[in-house]
């Protein structure tokens, strides 16, 4: 259990990159990028976890209760929001690519250039 969360983060990263690299459809590639990005959330929150502690929100617990690290949670929150907007921007690019070249297959796009 001491390294399992980190290894899960590594696995998600690798499988996401594999999906992107072998993708035949840019929409699918954007989905794989979202998978890859989720590995960073897992890693960040795993680093900040403290055994037996609770969330750093003191609205319903007495001050002084052991809590997990709020700094990494703030980072991960930013990460989630930025991830979503990046997905939106990339999907807009995919729509443009499709309009310009009539395909969303990365291999066919390479052939068009070369």
């Amino acid at each position, binding site marked *: *259990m001491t390294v*399992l*969360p980190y290894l*899960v983060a590594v*696995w*998600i990263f690798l*499988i*996401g990159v*594999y*999906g992107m690299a072998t993708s*035949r*459809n840019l*929409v*699918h590639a*954007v*989905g*794989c990028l*979202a*998978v890859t990005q*989720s*590995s960073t*959330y*897992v890693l960040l*929150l*795993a680093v*900040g*976890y403290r*055994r*037996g*502690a*609770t*969330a750093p*929100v003191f609205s319903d617990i007495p001050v002084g209760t052991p*809590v*997990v690290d709020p700094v990494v*949670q703030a980072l*991960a*929150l930013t990460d*989630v*929001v930025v*991830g*979503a907007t990046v*997905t*939106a921007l990339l*999907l807009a690019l*995919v*729509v443009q690519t*499709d*309009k310009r070249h*009539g395909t*969303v297959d990365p291999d066919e796009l390479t052939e068009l250039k070369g």
Partner: protein
Amino acid sequence: MGDALDDALLAAGLLLVAAAATAAALCRDPARQAVLLSLLGLGLALLFTVLQAPDVGLSQLAVGSAVTPLMLLLTVRKVRRRKRHE
């Protein structure tokens, strides 16, 4: 005993997320991948809650359950519509 239960929940959440990520990355059809990505989002929200990060879980739920799938599916539809015409 409470500790063992915490560990079990953590392990279940982690394995669920890993499995959902694998399924989402390996699914080649973008529309079906969108369904798996929303499952991944739900799994992540569960994992974040178990990791005592409800704030992050909430933003994952907000973003992942309807907005991201909607954008993905609309892109798929736009691309398919153009394909069908050709």
